């Protein structure tokens, strides 16, 4: 009876708030009990609206309050650092880019989830995202092997190969399976300035580092030999890495616009959205905006496949996810409340709702649900396919510094300030230096002939 009344009551509230009719009929996704209000630090991202809606459903269903402190993307890290470095944290849950989480794991700023509640387990359907939520404090490396669960993925992004279904079809080209296919296709499609064959990020910094590493993985190259085993011998100046870099430079120069050396994510999306690019290497999260007629001239025309294989025959993709963790300096009841939300959030129902509202779910079963059949979720198969080989990169404490090195040297090779061999040799030397300073077992390959 009471249960009934609550459902009705909730229904009215939900209806009053204008939420989708689908939500009204749903029963609570999971029972987490009464919890004190919590505050979540979250960035302003394209998937934020979906998250906000799901939080709204959580509040409806549980009556627990959540305050969302939405901060600009450029301010999240700053806010998170401030929060954990002094006094009591104003946040009880913080969503952080995977690259940033390392610093928080390593500094011991997050409470391992099992220390808050020993019984907490992630459902097995939840994708692992390269163990990015685990931290092995001895190895200073993200791995479930001997690592503690510190955080888990709120949103998992991977790069996908977007292509214009209509354009490729007309040209009689099948969706590329290898990077050589991409080169071949763009040789046919490239018709600047009307149409560029393929676009990806060449911008200095995170942009080129991230996009290039997919190709690097596809050529079976690596930055460090075997971090899992503690072997940090730098392998970035291997012949395979050089092949990957040469291929990437080739792709961007031959298929992209003349400003390939400064293309960022926004530029790549802009070129695809305006119909100026036939193919592009873009994050999954951008898909929704290509389907929004206010933002895209190619609604319904872009399809996705997993990023292509390299000449080595391997696939490569880098995971770029957002992890949520609980600050060590939050109060115990708040921590429990935050964990309760997490527990609720990873249920199938919550993830289903998250996907429906435009988020990327983190459970494999949602990808095989009814949603996958809908055209607007046509990216799901490619995404799930990518999960089989996608990897976390730079998942060690020195990651941020290594990214700086790669971000500059790769860009310099791209714009011709250095040869690719010299760029990689330089990067190898610098990265080795970083590893040595932090006391890793390291070394480097013999330099590539320049």
């Amino acid at each position, binding site marked *: 009876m009471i249960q009934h009344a609550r459902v009705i009551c909730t229904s009215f509230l939900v209806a009053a708030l204008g939420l989708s009719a689908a939500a009204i009929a749903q029963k609570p996704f999971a029972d987490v009990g009464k919890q004190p209000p919590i505050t979540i630090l979250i960035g*302003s991202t394209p998937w934020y609206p979906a998250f906000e809606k799901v939080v709204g459903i959580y509040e409806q269903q549980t009556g627990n309050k959540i305050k969302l402190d939405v*901060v600009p993307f450029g301010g999240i890290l700053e806010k998170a650092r401030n929060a954990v470095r002094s006094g009591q944290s104003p946040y009880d849950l913080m969503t952080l880019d995977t690259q940033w989480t390392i610093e928080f794991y390593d500094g011991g700023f997050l409470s391992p989830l099992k220390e808050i509640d020993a019984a907490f387990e992630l459902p097995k359907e939840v994708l692992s995202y390269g163990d990015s939520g685990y931290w092995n404090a001895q190895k200073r490396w993200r791995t479930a092997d001997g690592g503690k669960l510190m955080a888990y993925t709120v949103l998992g992004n991977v790069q996908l190969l977007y292509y214009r279904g209509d354009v490729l079809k007309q040209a009689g080209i099948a969706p590329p399976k290898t990077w050589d296919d991409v080169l071949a296709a763009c040789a046919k499609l490239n018709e600047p300035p009307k149409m560029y064959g393929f676009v990806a990020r060449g911008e200095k910094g995170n942009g080129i580092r991230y996009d290039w590493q997919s190709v690097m993985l596809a050529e079976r190259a690596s930055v460090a030999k075997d971090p899992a085993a503690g072997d940090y011998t730098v392998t970035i100046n291997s012949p395979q890495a050089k092949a990957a870099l040469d291929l990437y430079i080739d792709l961007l120069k031959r298929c992209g616009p003349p400003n390939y050396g400064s293309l960022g994510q926004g530029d790549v999306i802009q070129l695809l959205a305006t119909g100026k690019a036939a193919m592009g290497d873009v994050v999954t999260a951008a898909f929704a905006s290509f389907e929004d007629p*206010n933002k895209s001239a190619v609604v319904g025309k872009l399809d996705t496949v997993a990023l292509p294989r390299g000449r080595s025959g391997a696939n490569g993709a880098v995971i770029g996810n957002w992890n949520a963790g609980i600050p060590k300096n939050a109060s115990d009841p708040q921590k429990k409340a935050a964990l309760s939300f997490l527990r609720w959030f990873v249920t199938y129902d919550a993830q289903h709702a998250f996907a429906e509202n435009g988020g990327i779910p983190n459970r494999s079963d949602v990808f095989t649900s009814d949603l996958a059949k809908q055209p607007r979720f046509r990216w799901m198969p490619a995404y799930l396919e990518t999960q089989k080989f996608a990897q976390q990169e730079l998942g060690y404490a020195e990651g941020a510094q290594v990214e700086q090195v790669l971000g500059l040297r790769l860009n310099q090779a791209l714009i011709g300030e250095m040869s690719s061999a010299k760029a990689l040799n330089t990067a190898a030397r610098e990265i080795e230096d970083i590893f040595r300073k932090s006391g890793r077992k390291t070394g480097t390959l013999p330099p590539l002939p320049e």
Partner: protein
Amino acid sequence: MNTSATALSLPRSATTTPATAVGGGWIGTTLLALAVAAVLGPFAWILTASFKYQIAIYSGEWPFTPTLSNYAEVLFGRRSDFVGNVVNSLIVASASTALVLVVGTLAAYSLQRFRWPVWVSAGFLGWTLVFHMIPVMTLIGPWYVAFRELGLYDTRIALILTHVTINLPMTVWLMRAFFRELPPEIEEAALVDGCRPLEAFRRVTLPLVIPGLIASGILAFIFSWNEFPVALSLTSRDLATVPVAIARFAQQYEIQHSQMAAASIVSTIPAVILMALGQRFIVRGLTLGAVK
């Protein structure tokens, strides 16, 4: 907005203005027109962008079908706190401007008029400059810690105080330059005529540096209005200011240019109005104070 309202300027017919003596002529007019066009060009672009859909901005479409949806989203969107952000900014910027004008002008006057030992004046001025040179990012951590300890985190007071501090160097230096050009005899005359020192300062000195006060005031207001890193770190969502809100449109994977443009336009209007009111307030307050 009009300084010719200051008692300093004269009926145009009576004398030459400083610049008719030098400027003027068709060269000046042409240069001015060019400058206004150069300033307004990008601004007009922002204005039109605010009426465009993102895709129209992306593709540089012209002509375009205008839409008010960006404004609707910014002002009334369910997830938008923009009106609140503008109010926060107005409060913080006007309070910090008023404070910095009082504190900074007094300090500038004190340093310029009274004979301080060199270590005091040079020390103070040098410190303000060096402080001004420090990249703000390195200061934020300690400020965050201090204000949190004081229980002032996420209050406007913390933000106002830091903005006053950040703007103080420029205000002091700028006002000092204006005081320097004032002959001391005028104040001495006021003292002999029967003013207390503070009275002479308010009734005679200040009205004579109105142009300087207005310039300092506008600059302090704008710097406070646009200050991002401190506002971001010392406040949370409820007290966020305009630049923090606008930065939210610069997302990880895309910049929401259309809404950013609308927000920029929306935030400019109250700022301009408030600056105009502030100027009028300064002019009126000081000239009336001198006469009454």
